[in-house]
């Protein structure tokens, strides 16, 4: 195959694949997101809530305490509302 043949022109064409001008920026944005997630995990910010929910889901006693606390809070609110209405 000589230098001017279609094989060479095909190789030349194949070597000129365009990469999006945003490619590098998009990769760096994904890296930034990855670092952000890693930082959050390290400081435990979103991990705190996630960890607390996981802990609750694994402890039936804690779930019961939470439900009872919710009920008491609801009753207290109801009583307070009734007292307020009757005092009018």
């Amino acid at each position, binding site marked *: *195959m000589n230098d001017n043949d*279609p*094989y060479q022109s095909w190789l030349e064409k194949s*070597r000129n694949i365009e990469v999006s001008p945003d*490619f*590098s920026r998009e990769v*760096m944005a*994904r*890296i930034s997101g990855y670092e952000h997630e890693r930082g959050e995990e390290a400081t435990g910010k979103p991990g705190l809530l996630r960890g607390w929910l996981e802990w609750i889901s694994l402890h039936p006693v804690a779930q019961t305490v939470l439900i009872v606390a919710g009920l008491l809070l609801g009753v207290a609110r109801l009583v307070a509302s009734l007292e307020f209405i009757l005092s009018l």
Partner: protein
Amino acid sequence: MDDEEAIRRVLDGQTDCFGVLIEKYQKKIVGTIYHMTRDHHFSEDLGQDVFLEVYRNLPSFDPARGRFSTWLYRIARNKTLNAIKSKKPVFLSEIPEAASERNAFHEVVSEELHAEFDRILGQLPVKQRIAFVWAEIEQLSYQDIAEIEGISVGTVKSRINSARQQLRKAFGARKGITYE
């Protein structure tokens, strides 16, 4: 800034220096994936995944065990071959068919041959194809390809020669039409 310096800075917390490595290698990585899959959009997506994986694993990169480029190409190779295994039918359907009628005779012949070469490249066994793409299109040395693939230079040459023979056969079959 050379690769080692960029890596050192990234590991020291200068994340932006990773951009130097992306700029330097993006064309070869995306190009390789494109020639292996024939899907431009996918090649950019997978190229991004490659660089992200490289970034994540940068702390485990050991320059004593080889160059950064070899390590990067190996990650790209593995990701590409995994993608081909899982998506092969889609990619093969995207290999262009021979060009239809055009005005200029030589343009038609040239486009048809290019499409034919693309088609044959897409049909080569994966190992031959990637060796050919790296050597002939991305212009890596045989030694580099051997290091990336973990094979001997002789095996690299053999794979590339087999690929060339297939393409030459196609070229030979069409040559009479081209220059009659």
